[in-house]
């Protein structure tokens, strides 16, 4: 077992930022006021939350957008889809949920569960090309008067590939009359993209703190004020009635602190990580049988998704881990076993190719030394598994 570790799994969770940890400290010991209370400790908590709300609104959307703090990306997506659909079906005979087949399970399984629960709710899948990008024509074909919500992720969490979010916005926001509400799961996009550029035409956006150096179990749904959502939990009506339960001040403050750092450093980190990725991929391309899944210009800088011909992800990850490299296959099931990814299946990648899928994700902490180590170890592992070493 290697002593040193090299982290290439930012996509699963970015290293917690010092600035985040420090911002959370005052809200993690001693008296932490309940933001709903009447005394000064409560008012202080309330103020911290409202300040955090402003920062998150500016990070994701527009200053006037509403921010609902949630327990992470999955809950944000669930609140968006379930909230809109439950509201929609009170006034419509049929409620369509339109999603891409490459969505994260947070969206995919929420949509399928709603269709399972209600006969009048249907899930319609958009067509995707061989990079998993939704086609413009299928957006125009599927969005119509029965559409409750269109949910397309900003960036795919496994491949790093961008979706045409401005097109989604233009179809729903006026392109098709009564074209439903648009939502984007921006969890994988948040470390890289300037999200307000997308929110002009998108109604709701979900983010998660732990992908940008914040705490886990912290996220937000950012939405236009006029959108009506059925609450996910009622309780005491916190978060403007959308999410009952005491708001976690530390989680909200931590999310905001992470947003602040990403905003401040985005340009510089994008540039640096792009260069690291170029260095990594230039070397990986020399290894026979390694195929990088998407071209550079179609994806975020920090994500390299690839397949290794004839080898299984499980064995690659095992030996990479032995050598101190933390990476991922992109998809795993509830038991922890790696599975053939639904994203790759939607891209019509053959199963035997998809079985050799790996995802290396980088972030602001990744160094040239990390990348060089990965290159050396990865080549060694591939040749060893092929019995050529």
């Amino acid at each position, binding site marked *: 077992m290697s002593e040193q570790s090299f982290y290439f799994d930012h996509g699963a969770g970015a290293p917690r930022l010092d600035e985040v940890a420090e911002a959370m400290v005052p809200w993690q010991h001693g008296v932490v006021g309940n933001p709903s209370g009447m005394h000064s400790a409560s008012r202080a908590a309330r103020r911290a939350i409202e300040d955090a709300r402003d920062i998150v609104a500016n990070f994701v959307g527009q200053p006037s957008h509403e921010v609902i703090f949630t327990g992470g990306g999955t809950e944000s997506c669930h609140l968006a889809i379930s909230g809109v659909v439950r509201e929609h079906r009170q006034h419509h005979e049929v409620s369509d949920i339109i999603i891409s087949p490459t969505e994260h399970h947070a969206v995919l399984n929420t949509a399928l569960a709603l269709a399972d629960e209600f006969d009048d709710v249907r899930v319609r899948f958009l067509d995707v090309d061989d990079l998993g990008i939704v086609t413009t024509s299928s957006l125009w074909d599927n969005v119509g008067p029965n559409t409750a919500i269109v949910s397309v992720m900003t960036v795919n969490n496994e491949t790093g590939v961008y979706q045409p979010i401005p097109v989604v916005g233009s179809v729903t926001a006026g392109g098709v009359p009564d074209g439903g509400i648009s939502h984007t799961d921006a969890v994988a996009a948040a470390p890289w993209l300037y999200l307000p550029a997308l929110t002009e035409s998108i109604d709701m956006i979900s983010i998660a703190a732990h992908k940008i150096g914040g705490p886990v179990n912290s996220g937000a749904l950012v939405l236009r004020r006029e959108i009506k959502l059925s609450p996910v939990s009622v309780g005491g009506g916190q978060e403007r009635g959308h999410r009952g339960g005491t708001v976690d001040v530390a989680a909200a403050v931590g999310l905001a602190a992470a947003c602040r750092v990403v905003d401040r450093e985005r340009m510089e980190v994008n540039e640096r990580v792009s260069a690291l990725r170029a260095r990594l991929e230039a070397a990986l391309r020399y290894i026979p049988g390694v195929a990088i899944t998407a071209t550079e210009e179609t994806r975020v800088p920090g994500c390299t998704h690839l397949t290794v011909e004839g080898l299984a992800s*499980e*064995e690659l990850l*095992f*030996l990479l881990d032995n050598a101190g490299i933390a990476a991922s296959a992109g998809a795993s*099931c509830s*038991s*922890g*076993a790696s599975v*053939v990814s639904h994203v790759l299946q939607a891209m019509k990648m053959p199963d035997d190719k998809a079985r050799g899928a790996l995802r290396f994700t980088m972030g602001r902490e990744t160094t040239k030394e990390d990348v060089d180590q990965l290159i050396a170890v990865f080549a060694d592992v591939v040749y*060893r598994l092929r019995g050529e070493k």
Partner: protein
Amino acid sequence: MRVLVAMSGGVDSSVAAALLKEAGHDVVGATLKLWGGASDSGCCSVSDVDDARRVAHSLDIDHHIFNYTSEFEAAVVKPFVEDHAAGLTPNPCIECNRAIKFDLLFERAERLGFDAVATGHHALVESWNGQPTLTRSVDPLKDQSYVLGYIQGPILRRLMLPIGGMNKEEVRVHAERLNLRTWNKPDSQDVCFIEASRGREEFLGQRIELTSAEVFDRVTQEVVGRVPAAQLVTLGQRRGIAPGFDGERRFVASVDLVNRRVEVDRIEAIMVSAIALRPDSLTFAYDEVPNGTRVIVQWSAHGRPVSATLETSDAPRLILDESARPVSAGQSVVFYDAETGRHVLGAAQVGR
């Protein structure tokens, strides 16, 4: 040695891992995810994986999950279904051992740099005639050498079976001593991919067309009953078969899927003294034994061992010393050394 332990989440493999670690080996645990569908028994559920992982944590060893669901489907489940459709009686646990655990897992372990693979089976690998040989467990009630019968020399050289030298009680004592959370977990019994509550009939019924059949008395040729699924009827079976007019028990003498006909007869009329073996299925741990070798055979997991002579001609068969109820085609017979009765020589499938 660097040892990969297959950990099902049960008490046996938990103790196997613990003992190897105590013996100073460099141990890594792996749980095989085999079945992707619903299951309420056996060893594929999230809670079993969880048990294995938590035992590994408590032993301070690494734990991994290896997903073999597509290989399991192709090598175990699909043949299980097809064999039933063809009127055979397959043993999926034997197939899983042969195709997955003692083949794919061993190949993987070698690629990943392990010197040996261990499992929690109740059996031993003993040096016998100078070669590592699969041997019965010291606990006759728990002995699992039967389901491992097809393992061959190259695998036996890298196989460790740490608990074959103790009985179940001793295994549990170890588990309790080590404070393993699985110490009082009940043994798994059934086929892991079939829900006990729903049964074989429903599982197969969703995959193949089960045909009902009329039951005839072989002597009188009168219809004496009906079975809902002829594919599930096994030669020699008594369960579900009504006694004859004379009040004596009847046993299944033949099953004809095409003509939907099951014939039954009295026990003494169905007894056989030879068992035909499928020629291409004959497997030996090392060299093929000479024609006419005296062996002790067993054709079910906890069946009674019977003395026999093994004919390894073009039409291989077993000549039994004492007659027995007929054995269905597709079942496996394991051959043990005639003198020790404990050392496995090989195995074969029963032919038609």
